[in-house]
């Protein structure tokens, strides 16, 4: 009797937990992916077996999956999740990412300093660029009532062309008709695989910075008066203003912090993986995929971490997949779709409970 009550409670808890729905969504995503594989003429069980086999095959592959491929998603995911918590949809993480990578590249390539100064300098430059890029949208919103989503979409394109413009400047371009910038100095690189040969060639200690950011953002959101006020404005701007919270200031702060997180992703990618900025042929998507990651993570910083690791691993697995790597995109797309409608699922389950008259 008591046991059954406990089980019932447990099931109710499970039904309320966002994690359950994320898990269900992931399963549905894989089922849909399996259907796509079948249609494309692959055996889904074999293909999935290979996919996970690749991800975990060696320390090198694990490093690819969970460091090299995941770090930018951790940070852009955090950026979007943090903005969500404060009531802003940061679709501008893409542009902030680009501004961060350009700033880090410029400081990395043209400033001469020893590593222990050079690396922080690059990061600070990127953070400043991101704060500016995010904060500027906040300013436009506050000062002119511009809609932040529209602004950010345009800012993404401005950053995109700004980056291409910089890369093609005579003193930045590497020359020989190539379409990328000069490489950053060795003192600005953060790659660690020289010391740890078991890792993938471009594993970098940015992963630790990203982990610190997860903890710091979690702390800010949940434990500080800053987070308290930002959330109050996000949930109910009128009540927050009425309670004397500076709502405009909050929006500005939130967007600046979001911008810094996304730009940090760009900086770490340049300093640890690419060492240069290339001319874009299309938007890279780290910022946009940050939205996916934030949703998978339920806008919780630790959820974002898990979501980003999952996403990064899938991305890497997709590149070593015998089936088309687009299958991975299909799976991820389905997962996000399912998570987006999970509130609907929840409603259906709870209304069923109501009607049934427990």
């Amino acid at each position, binding site marked *: 009797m008591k046991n059954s009550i406990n089980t019932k409670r447990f099931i109710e808890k499970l039904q309320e937990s966002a994690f359950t729905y994320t898990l269900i969504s992931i399963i549905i995503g894989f089922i849909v992916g399996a259907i796509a594989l079948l249609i494309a003429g692959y055996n889904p069980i074999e293909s999935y077996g290979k996919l996970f086999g690749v991800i975990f095959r060696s320390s090198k592959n694990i490093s690819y999956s969970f460091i090299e491929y995941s770090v930018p998603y951790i940070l852009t995911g955090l950026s979007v999740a943090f903005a969500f918590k404060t009531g802003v949809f940061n679709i501008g993480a893409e542009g902030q990412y680009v501004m961060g990578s350009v700033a880090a590249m410029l400081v990395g390539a043209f400033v001469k300093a020893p590593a222990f100064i050079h690396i922080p300098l690059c990061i600070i430059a990127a953070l400043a660029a991101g704060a500016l890029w995010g904060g500027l949208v906040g300013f436009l919103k506050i000062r002119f009532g511009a809609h932040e989503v529209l602004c950010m979409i345009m800012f993404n394109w401005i950053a995109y062309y700004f980056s291409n413009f910089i890369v093609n400047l005579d003193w930045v371009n590497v020359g020989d008709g190539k379409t990328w910038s000069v490489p950053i100095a060795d003192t600005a690189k953060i790659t660690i695989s020289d010391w740890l040969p078991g890792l993938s060639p471009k594993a970098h200690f940015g992963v630790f910075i990203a982990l610190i950011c997860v903890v710091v953002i979690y702390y800010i959101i949940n*434990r*500080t*008066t*800053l987070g*308290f*006020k930002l*959330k*109050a404005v996000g*949930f*109910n701007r*009128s*009540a*927050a*203003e*009425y*309670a*004397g*919270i*500076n709502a405009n200031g909050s929006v500005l702060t939130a967007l600046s912090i979001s911008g810094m997180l996304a730009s940090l992703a760009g900086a770490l990618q340049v300093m640890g993986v690419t060492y240069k900025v290339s001319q874009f042929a299309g938007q890279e998507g780290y910022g946009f995929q940050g939205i996916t990651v934030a949703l998978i993570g339920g806008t919780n910083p630790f959820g974002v971490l898990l979501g980003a690791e999952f996403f990064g691993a899938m991305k890497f697995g997709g590149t070593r997949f015998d089936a088309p790597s687009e299958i991975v995109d299909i799976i991820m797309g389905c997962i996000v779709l399912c998570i987006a409608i999970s509130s609907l699922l929840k409603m259906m389950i709870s209304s069923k409970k*109501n*009607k049934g*008259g*427990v």
Partner: protein
Amino acid sequence: MEENGRIDMSRPTVEMKNIVKMFGSFKANDGINLTVHKGEIHAILGENGAGKSTLMNILYGLYHPTSGQIFINGKEVSISGPNKAIELGIGMVHQHFMLVQPFTVAENIILGMEPMLPGGRVNMKAARAKVNEISARYGLEVNADAKIEDISVGMQQRAEILKVLYRGADILILDEPTASLTPQEIEELIEIMHNLAREGKTVILITHKLKEIKAAADYCTIIRQGKYINTVRVADTTEQQLAAMMVGRSVEFKVDKAAIEPGEVALEVHDLHAKDYRNVEVLRGLDLTVRKGEIVGIAGIDGNGQTELVEILTGLKKATHGAITMNGHDAYNKTPRQLFDMGISSIPADRHKHGLVLDFSVEDNLILQNADEKPYSNHGALNFKAIDEHAKELIEKYDIRPRGCEHEPAGDLSGGNQQKVIIAREVTNDKDLLIAVNPTRGLDVGAIEYVHKYIVDQRNKHKAVLLVSFELDEVMSLSDRIDVIFEGKIVGSMSGSEADEKKLGLMMAGGSAHEE
């Protein structure tokens, strides 16, 4: 009562027997019986959260009872949903209107059941004629061609009632219909209810306002904490008896208020001018003084500048001209934070929009303005223990229910308890001036008693209180001085003891106090 002549006691239209409704392990309705006859106005009385709305939602098919039977016109039915309810002739007018703002009254009424012309066009002529016919028959005057966004709340409600009648309802459920009406509109609504009953309709009225029950209803069923208490004939029952049955203890209607001498001036407003969002001047040289140790009540019909006055005093709106001082300091066009720090706290009119962050927990709402202060935070880090203890203390002290709700979202509380959260917070802020705007809107008598007590307590602590309320009774029973606002100016002032409804009513409508 002569009204009883119209009731056909031989024909019960609605019978609900032994209704039980469980939500999980919580019994929202616990064996409730209800019998209503043709031509009867039947009130359902209960505190916030007593289970009135649950019962009516069962009758309207929105919930399914866990057990119990429902008979409509003598036949047992199972009401599977609102469509089935409408088929059975049951219509419900919700507390929050469901109207399409840019549509006209007639368009809203026919929405979903439009008379059609060939080619898929709506026959607006027929629609208008039908609407006018129904409105004439029941004395529900409306302008069928006016847009909803342009008409008053009372008119919107009539549109809602017409919508239900247009769908052929014989049994009308009105859920807290007077919550947002002015006293005049309430009188007109009661008249409409009588007309409906006279035409053979059955009216079920959900309310916790005793005065309206006395004025409108024939019979009254009382529910307390989900349980059926009694059904009484209203004419044979006093307001005191109704209140006691509803709350489960005897309730003091009169506010106990010892005379105290007002002290120095707290708030002074001089020649205040302001425009509303349409750029129309709504405050036209308003003067106001509130002293410490006095409650100044602002009486007036909605839309005479009260909203703007409060918005300016709380920093949400900028005045165009004038002067405001608080404790002698300039308080003209300051930010909400500055005004709060100067000593102004307020119980806002719209508790969902301005009073609470509904997604925040109760304890977070209780420190909304004070998160930066010790002990709730230290160098920017929140101190959960202090926040938690603070909440527990206030929940106990202000009787916020359910107990142990400090971590629940404020949005999960009933309206009355949400209001208590705000009052607990603002009274605890203990500022020199408390502005209370419709502080008891939507509350039941038990809760009203508490709110009034806290307001008077503030005054007795020699704080200044500015009370803005559409409930004339409330203004009269609480205020030491009453200022009447009309078209953006204070047009008259009298002491609370010499005020009477007639004099005030005349001044509120723009007449002078001395005409007679």
